[in-house]
């Protein structure tokens, strides 16, 4: 059976709109990649659109020679891992304990936790706390304050609540203690959700910018987003490049170097993206339905 003409027209329109949406998403990224791979004279002549003109790796070489960019990537990776580790430990502890209906004070604790979703101190009280804790300009200011996201906690808690009791009951029969039950029974059964929540924490830490802007002063402790912000918006934070590359005493960084920095900072996310996306869709749907 052949499909009717209106039907085929409809399909063509749908495919066309979908393609336009995809192009709109992808074109800016392609443009920046092209700019990062083009020579400065081509850029000044407004010749670069989606394809590199006068192809050169100069910008990447300049970034590579400025060790601070590489350092920032390494440092941010380590910081993200540390944050994710701390966050997962605290979140799992809280979610597992609060998933036990027999626990005294469970409702009161949950109320105390949920209240913080609706009301918080705000920027200045948060800042003063970090200052009083002597955490300003240390990695802890980025690792600890966001260690439990209430949203993630609720998703984890409802997952634990829905695990069948029979597993734990039979483990108790076999003489397993509390620690063994958590480590050998509950956590292995929860691996997919643990992976998803870890990614939630890791991506929001990796992409986090605001708290670094507020709490971090030393360039050596800039996470990648703050570093990139200084390069792209303020044209600073790349000593070597500014001294060597710009030439003519210009205070502005060449556009190609800024573009290369954007690409550079996106690579880690793009590399893990296919995998990331799958987990995020799943996790968001669980949260969306629960929430």
């Amino acid at each position: 059976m052949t499909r009717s003409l209106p039907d085929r027209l409809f399909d063509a329109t749908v495919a066309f709109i979908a393609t336009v949406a995809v192009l709109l998403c992808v074109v800016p990224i392609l443009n920046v990649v092209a700019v990062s791979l083009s020579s400065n004279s081509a850029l000044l002549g407004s010749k670069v659109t989606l394809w590199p003109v006068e192809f050169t790796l100069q910008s990447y070489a300049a970034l590579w020679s400025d060790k601070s960019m590489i350092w920032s990537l390494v440092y941010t990776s380590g910081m993200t891992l540390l944050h994710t580790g701390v966050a997962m430990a605290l979140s799992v502890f809280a979610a597992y304990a609060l998933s036990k209906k027999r626990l005294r004070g469970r409702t009161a604790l949950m109320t105390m936790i949920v209240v913080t979703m609706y009301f918080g101190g705000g920027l200045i009280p948060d800042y003063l706390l970090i200052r009083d804790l002597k955490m300003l300009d240390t990695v802890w200011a980025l690792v600890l304050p966001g260690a439990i996201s209430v949203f993630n906690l609720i998703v984890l808690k409802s997952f634990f609540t829905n695990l069948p009791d029979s597993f734990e009951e039979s483990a108790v029969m076999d003489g397993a203690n509390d620690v063994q039950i958590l480590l050998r029974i509950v956590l292995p059964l929860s691996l997919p959700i643990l992976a998803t929540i870890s990614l939630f924490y890791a991506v929001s830490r990796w992409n986090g910018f605001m708290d670094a802007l507020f709490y971090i002063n030393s360039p050596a402790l800039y996470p990648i987003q703050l570093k990139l912000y200084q390069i792209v918006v303020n044209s600073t934070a790349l000593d070597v490049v500014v001294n060597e590359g710009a030439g003519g005493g210009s205070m502005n960084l060449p556009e190609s170097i800024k573009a290369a920095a954007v690409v550079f900072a996106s690579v880690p996310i793009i590399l893990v993206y296919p995998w990331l996306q799958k987990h995020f869709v799943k996790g968001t749907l669980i949260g969306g339905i629960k929430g």
Partner: protein
Amino acid sequence: MPKTKARFSFRRDAFLYLLLLLPVVYFVLFRYVPMYGVTIAFKDFNIFSGIWASDWNGWAQFQEIFSTREFYQVVRNTLVLNVLDLVVGFPFPLFLALVINEVRSRRYKKTVQTLIYLPHFLSWVIVGGLVLQVLAPDKGLVNIVLKSLGMAQIDFLTNGPHWVATYVAVGIWQSAGWGTILFLAAMTGISPELYEAAEVDGASRWQRIWKITVPSLTPVIVLLFVLQVGRLTSISFDRPFILGNPLVNDYAQVISTYVYDVGLKSMRFNIATAVGLFQSLVGLVLLLLTNWMAERNGQEGIYK
């Protein structure tokens, strides 16, 4: 046996309380101590004597805020940007989801989804970098294209009203694709029998969308809309801060960035805290109100 369940036994649950120890410390320290810190909005705060020892001075900060022209401008900007996000931005994910749902080839559908979700995973700094590059006045991609079409260059980021339009458009670019997932998930729940019956009755695909898909999505649409209305007075920091610049300050300065400027840059801690408190109280009332409305409409509210 069931009786022991109800009884309190610290010995039995000692492990659970041990697990709760650090999380409770976390919530008290990082979430409740700053709530106490809010009191500096009502104090003549002196950074050397600290929050406790500083003297109360009542509503002085609020009187000062409400007497400045800047404050009203900042509130206005926040509301204008959020309302535009809601009115202009809201239909896009729905429209995209309807389109994606009609794509016939499964493979192409997957590819489209993967690519339009991508911007959601880029940080605002990266998005800002893309925007500065693509929308640059002279050498930016869009202006190169405009000029080659014989049109005049557009100052996307340095002219106030243009900046507002850019802000909204960039928001759509970053979030419309990702915004489709709840709609798409809801669509998979629509019974295929409905579509089959409509097809037998000779309904066109266009009619099937309007008569089946959209009505089935109404609860989700209403819920998401109401939730976004609840957030009209609160605005994120990264997006306006990163896209903004001094030339468009009259349009781009919003509550979050204003609190940062007044508080951390000018070190007027108590004034900034008072602005933040004003916002979170108004925001709280609006949020609870809309949540209550959502629940009354038979939808599930946020977080029960």
